[in-house]
């Protein structure tokens, strides 16, 4: 049953008052001198009042002292063994009992809170270390990312340049493909013309070959005729020798006739003139023979040259026939080849046109790639800026982590003051 402290004071006051009131009467019961009774009664009353007052006071102060000690322990942070130092059960609990229970609750809650706080501080320290490690790694990663971003930026720049160059080259390739397509078209047309011309050439060559065969036969006949002519020319010098001999004999005869006519004097003068004419005739004959001989020699030389040439021509004819056979085969091969070339030129033309179309598409795609590369460059610049901001944020986080670490240390120091 709860008895408030005020009631207890009133009860104590009443007990003291009662004592003061009733003790002197009780003293009178005792046989003692009169003069002693009053002082003794006052004295007994005062003693009893003091005892009762002391009992009440002690009862009150003991509880407050205990509570004060508990509060002092709490204030010192000594939160150990709260239950063992409780006041114990009271017959008449009062506000101190409730205050003790409240302090015990505070003690218990505070003990739990401090324990939780210590755990939290411990975990916070661990988390702080982890955070420091993470921030360090984040810083390193940020640095690496910054470096990588720089390299990526450089790479993107170089890639952009390469893509631009590739774009230019692809445009050039496209132009070259266009030019090649044009030239291939010309080539295809030329191949067709060459094919037609080759067929015409083959026809003309076949006709020419037949005519050359006729020419070869004529050359062979000419060679045979030249050989016969050479043989006949070989007979001419013999005839000329005979003529020369006759001419010389005639000349000699005329000479002697002239001499004889001279010896005949005036009668032989006419004969001498005739003989002289004969001699001149022989002389002319001799010169003509010499001229003819010279002409025959030249003619023989020419005929020999003709024969030699004809023989060479005949040999060449034999070789020429072989060559003609080869030419026929080659012409056949050429016409087949030109047909094949014309067909392949058509295929090449088709492929070149496809290549041209592909090159144009490639140019467009490369242009798109160049645009994307430019965008990537811009994005890389943005990423670089973001990484810089991220680095700054990491620096700030690092500073905050340091501050947090200091706070954690400080909190740890505070919590360390509590004993559980």
């Amino acid at each position, binding site marked *: 049953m709860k008895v408030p402290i005020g009631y207890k004071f009133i009860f104590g006051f009443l007990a003291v008052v009662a004592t003061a009131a009733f003790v002197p009467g009780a003293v009178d019961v005792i046989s003692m001198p009169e003069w002693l009774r009053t002082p003794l009664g006052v004295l007994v009353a005062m003693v009893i009042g003091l005892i009762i007052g002391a009992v009440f006071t002690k009862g009150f102060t003991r509880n407050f002292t205990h509570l004060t000690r508990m509060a002092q322990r709490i204030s010192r942070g000594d939160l150990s063994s709260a239950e063992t130092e409780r006041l114990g059960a009271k017959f008449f609990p009062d506000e101190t009992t409730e205050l003790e229970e409240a302090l015990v609750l505070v003690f218990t809650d505070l003990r739990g809170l401090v324990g939780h706080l210590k755990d939290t501080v411990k975990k916070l320290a661990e988390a702080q270390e982890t955070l420091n490690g993470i921030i360090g790694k984040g810083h390193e990663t940020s640095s690496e990312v910054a470096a990588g971003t720089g390299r990526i930026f450089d790479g993107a720049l170089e890639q952009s340049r390469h893509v631009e160059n590739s774009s230019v080259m692809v445009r050039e390739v496209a132009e070259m493909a266009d030019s090649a397509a044009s030239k291939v078209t010309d080539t295809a047309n030329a191949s067709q013309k060459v094919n037609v011309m080759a067929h015409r050439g083959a026809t003309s060559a076949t006709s020419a070959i037949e005519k050359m065969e006729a020419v070869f036969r004529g050359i062979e006949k000419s060679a045979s005729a030249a050989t016969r002519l050479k043989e006949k020319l070989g007979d001419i010098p013999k005839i000329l020798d005979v003529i020369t001999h006759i001419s010389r*004999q005639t*000349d*000699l005869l005329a*000479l*002697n006739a002239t*001499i004889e006519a*001279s*010896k005949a004097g005036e009668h032989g003068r006419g004969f001498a003139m005739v003989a002289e004419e004969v001699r001149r005739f022989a*002389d002319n004959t001799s010169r003509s023979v010499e001229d003819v001989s010279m002409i025959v020699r030249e003619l023989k030389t020419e005929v020999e040259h003709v024969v030699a040439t004809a023989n060479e021509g005949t040999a060449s004819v034999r070789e020429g026939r072989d060559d003609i056979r080869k030419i026929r085969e080659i012409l056949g091969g050429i016409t087949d080849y030109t047909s094949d070339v014309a067909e392949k030129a058509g295929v090449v033309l088709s492929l070149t046109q496809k290549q041209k179309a592909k090159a144009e598409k490639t140019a467009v795609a490369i242009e798109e790639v160049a645009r994307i590369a430019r965008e990537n460059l811009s994005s890389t610049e943005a990423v670089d800026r973001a990484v810089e901001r991220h680095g700054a944020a990491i620096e700030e986080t690092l500073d905050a982590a340091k501050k947090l670490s200091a706070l954690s240390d400080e909190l740890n120091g505070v919590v360390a003051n509590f004993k559980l």
Partner: protein
Amino acid sequence: MEKNGDRLVFSVNGRHLALPLASVERVVERPRVYFLPGGRPPLMGVITHMAEPVTVIDLDRLFGAKTGSAAPYTVVIARAGGKIVGLCAGAAGGKPSFLWSGDLRGAKPGPAAGKYISRAVELSGRIIEELDCSSLYDEISDLLSRPENMKGPAEGG
């Protein structure tokens, strides 16, 4: 040189040699001239004419040419008195020509005669020298009668 006599003229080694037609018996052509024992240039050898041996002398060699006549040989057979001699001038002389007596009317006396030359005249700027057949025959006789020639061509060197 007789003014009315006709001449047969040779060109030998740049010189014009004449022979009176009266002394020319025949001009013959022979494929070869037979070797005469003891014969040395200018003596060529011997031929036959009308079954008579005729000694032939090479005028080219006689008048200083380095080369002699070549076959067929044209030989002028000349007779002076009872002496007969063959004159061959086939190498450089060309064909003999005639110098008629009428052509000699404008001839002027030439330089002094030399060996084997009886006389010389100048006609139209040409010096025509007349051969002395007797001296030629004597020369042949002299050549053939020399003791070294009697030893034959191999021994004479």
